[in-house]
């Protein structure tokens, strides 16, 4: 007689045959194999078998389950036995997932982020803070759930084993990646953050402050970065409003001072209103002749001034208003940059990932914005620190800022001077053919803009009349472990392409599955992104509409990593070494792009190809592949796979050749791309050399590029530049202290030095 059983955790509990019968009945019902009477008969046989085998000891759970499986088969309930086995396997997986989850949470809770690589997976989340840890624990729980319940088994397996990487997997069931916020559309008429209503801003200071709030609010509705594609055009309107007010005030002051009168408010505002009505323009940084004439005429009539004097007063007012506006704009841009580096989002664990695009607005107001935001970037934060956010992206366009005779060429030059010091701006090139095809002069929404690391959203298969950057973004992306496909093909090119096509198909299916989840959400799930009409066409939705149709303006992107290692595994060398291998590289990426285009056509959705920004991924895939294949020279023998289509970072190549070889991949990767050139500090600070690189990128058809160079800072003396072992300003080595007298001496020489604590 069986009295007791041993549970998995070692506890001994009373034996209960009913529980066994109930489990058997469940399997019989699922498979449609039998009823309660059948279950009772099988359970009796299970008990008989257990009694014959266990005379004194308590059988354990696993043995009992094995016996149930056997008896189900003995009775001919094969389908029920199968269902029972599946149920057991699922329970085991869930149990294991729970164990892994608990271990992960344990690591998040107890291990210092400096030691735990997992906690540094994303460098912009501080895994040592309370909110950062909470975010990581939530992510770990969501991932375990998503893998268990939302993924098809074949997708879960591919993800688990490192064939693919599903990015932002913790947000799988929750939201989409990113958006290009049309800041003007948002501001017009005012907007609500969900915590209160904000009126349409009326000065450049409020334009800049509200732009930061818009980025912060939208970031809370999505898991990726936020971008403003029209920063110059958008802020220009705020500059115009500030100037108009300043011109009125300065003109009033000038007239009152000259005539020694008071309370000219009404008369002046009347003069300006009439002039605006007569000419159809308002006061502008560069006032039109007709406007000035109309104001002068009004002043003569209302204040009995002669025309000469009136014009003089107007000129003076205009000059002063200009200065005031420039000052306000500078402060507004400084405030904006400071805000984006200090404001918190996502439960305080991150600063928002933010990008701003500018460079093409040639109006005086737009130019004032561009100049001042560049100067704010140049100045750095309170102690001269380099700003991490926002990412600045300068849009380069012939006829606008690229040639010496172009109206914004001076700002292009300034941007390079700043980038040589601060690493930003990066450059996006509107003349590259695949960008130029969308460009319509006078319609800034047709200028390609970039968000975050590299995401690009422009073409629109779903709605070809809306091939614009504004109000759209990426929905989700998944990356393929390209080198593994190559290793598994053993140099067989045909086999590689077969495997690649199958993998593309698997990823496309997974992206579409994820889209199904996203499509069934509603505007109330995204109170800002959808509720405030930030996303294209979301302003036409009602509360009961799902998001399916409007989300189709976004992109589903297939990414990849390690083209260099893939080529090495297949052909022995990477694409930096010969033109033949460059051709092979372009064939592979071209094949992937072609797949995406066909899939887009088939689905009438935007399936695009991404040169993945591999941060956490660069190590994840290769660690798994080293376990699988060992260290294959040139393929798995480093700690990282090479980013997207890049020439390996360790390979000696000229800047010119690197740009020439990487540019054709930009044309293929329509979901986003970036190329970097590494310069030594002295070259980077040589603006001519810097410009030569940027022009080389432009002329070769790079889409998005940036120049890397060392930017170091000594927080003690505030020196920013290149620091080897010894700080060139204060002469200390890392970690060394320096004498108070020396600090005092330095402070006299460099008044901008940070007030480092501990000095009296």
């Amino acid at each position, binding site marked *: 007689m069986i009295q007791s059983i041993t549970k998995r955790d070692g506890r001994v509990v009373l034996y209960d045959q009913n529980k066994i019968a109930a489990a058997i009945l469940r399997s019989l019902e699922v498979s449609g194999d039998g009823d309660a009477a059948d279950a009772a008969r099988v359970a009796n046989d299970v008990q008989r078998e257990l009694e014959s085998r266990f005379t004194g000891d308590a059988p354990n759970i696993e043995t009992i389950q094995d016996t149930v499986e056997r008896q189900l088969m003995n009775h001919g309930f094969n389908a029920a036995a199968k269902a029972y086995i599946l149920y057991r396997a699922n329970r085991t997986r869930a149990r294991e997932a729970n164990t892994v989850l608990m271990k992960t949470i344990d690591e998040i809770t107890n291990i210092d982020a*400096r030691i735990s*690589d997992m906690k*540094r*997976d994303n*460098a912009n989340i*501080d895994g040592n803070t309370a909110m950062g840890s909470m975010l990581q624990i939530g992510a770990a729980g969501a991932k375990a759930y998503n893998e268990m319940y939302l993924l098809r088994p074949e997708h879960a397996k591919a993800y688990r084993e490192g064939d693919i990487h599903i990015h932002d997997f913790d947000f799988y069931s929750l939201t989409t990646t990113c958006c290009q916020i049309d800041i003007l559309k948002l501001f017009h008429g005012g907007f609500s953050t969900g915590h209160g209503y904000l009126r349409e801003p009326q000065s450049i200071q409020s334009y800049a402050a509200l732009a930061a709030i818009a980025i912060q609010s939208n970031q809370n509705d999505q898991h990726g970065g936020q971008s403003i594609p029209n920063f110059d055009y958008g802020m220009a309107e705020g500059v115009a409003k500030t100037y108009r007010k300043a011109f009125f005030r300065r003109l009033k002051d000038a007239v009152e001072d000259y005539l020694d009168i008071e309370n000219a408010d009404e008369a002046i505002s009347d003069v300006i209103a009439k002039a605006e009505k007569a000419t159809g323009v308002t006061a502008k940084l560069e006032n039109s002749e007709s406007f000035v004439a109309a104001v002068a005429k009004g002043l003569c009539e209302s204040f009995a001034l002669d025309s000469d004097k009136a014009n003089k007063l107007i000129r003076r007012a205009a000059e002063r208003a200009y200065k005031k506006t420039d000052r306000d704009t500078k402060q507004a841009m400084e405030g904006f940059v400071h805000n984006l580096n200090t404001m918190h989002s996502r439960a305080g664990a991150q600063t928002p990932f933010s990008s701003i695009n500018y460079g093409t607005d040639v109006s005086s107001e737009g130019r004032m914005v561009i100049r001042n935001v560049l100067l704010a970037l140049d100045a750095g934060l309170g102690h001269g*620190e*380099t700003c*991490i*956010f926002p*990412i600045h992206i300068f849009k380069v366009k012939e006829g606008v800022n690229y040639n010496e005779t172009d109206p914004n060429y001076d700002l292009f030059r300034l941007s390079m001077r700043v980038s040589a010091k601060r*690493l*930003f701006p*990066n450059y996006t090139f509107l003349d590259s053919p695949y960008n130029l095809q969308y460009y319509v002069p006078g319609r800034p929404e047709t200028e390609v803009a970039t968000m*975050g*690391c*590299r995401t690009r959203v422009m073409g629109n298969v779903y709605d070809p009349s809306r091939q614009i950057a504004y109000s759209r973004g990426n929905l989700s992306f998944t990356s393929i472990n390209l080198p593994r496909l190559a290793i598994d093909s053993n140099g067989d090119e045909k086999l590689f392409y077969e495997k690649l096509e199958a993998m593309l198909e698997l990823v496309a299916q997974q992206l579409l599955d994820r889209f199904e989840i996203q499509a069934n959400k509603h505007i109330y799930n995204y109170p800002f992104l959808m509720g405030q009409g930030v996303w294209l066409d979301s302003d036409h939705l009602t509360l009961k509409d799902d998001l399916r149709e409007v989300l189709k303006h976004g992109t589903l992107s297939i990414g990849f990593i390690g083209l260099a290692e893939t080529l090495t595994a297949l052909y022995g060398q990477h694409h930096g070494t010969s033109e033949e291998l460059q051709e092979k590289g372009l064939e592979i990426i071209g094949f992937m792009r072609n797949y995406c285009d066909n899939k887009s056509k088939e689905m009438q959705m935007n399936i695009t190809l991404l040169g993945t*920004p*591999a*941060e956490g991924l*660069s*190590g994840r895939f*290769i*660690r798994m592949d080293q376990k699988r294949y060992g260290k294959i020279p040139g393929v798995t023998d*480093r*700690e*990282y796979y090479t*980013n997207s289509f890049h020439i390996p*970072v*360790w*390979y*000696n*190549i*000229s*800047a*010119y050749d690197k740009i020439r070889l990487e540019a054709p991949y930009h044309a293929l990767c329509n979901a986003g791309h970036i190329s*970097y050139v*590494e*310069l*030594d500090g002295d*070259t980077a600070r040589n603006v001519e050399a810097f410009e030569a690189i940027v022009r080389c990128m432009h002329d070769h058809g790079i889409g998005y590029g*940036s120049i*890397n160079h*060392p*930017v*170091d*800072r*000594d*927080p003690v003396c505030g020196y920013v530049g290149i*620091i080897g072992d010894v*700080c060139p300003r204060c002469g*200390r080595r890392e*970690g*060394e*202290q*320096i004498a108070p007298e020396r600090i005092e001496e330095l402070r006299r020489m460099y008044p901008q030095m940070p007030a*480092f*604590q*501990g*000095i009296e």
Partner: protein
Amino acid sequence: MTAKSKNEKLGQGVGFERIRRITGYLVGTMDKWNDAKRAEERDRVKHGMSKNG
């Protein structure tokens, strides 16, 4: 003033900040980078300005 900076007066124990581009955005000092990206950064070589390599 933070407790940390009090204890590190005059620079004792204070390192240099080294800002680098990670994938497109910047990260304020490299101690937050994961191990693979640190290794990648270590391996980066400078690119020369000549057209012939």
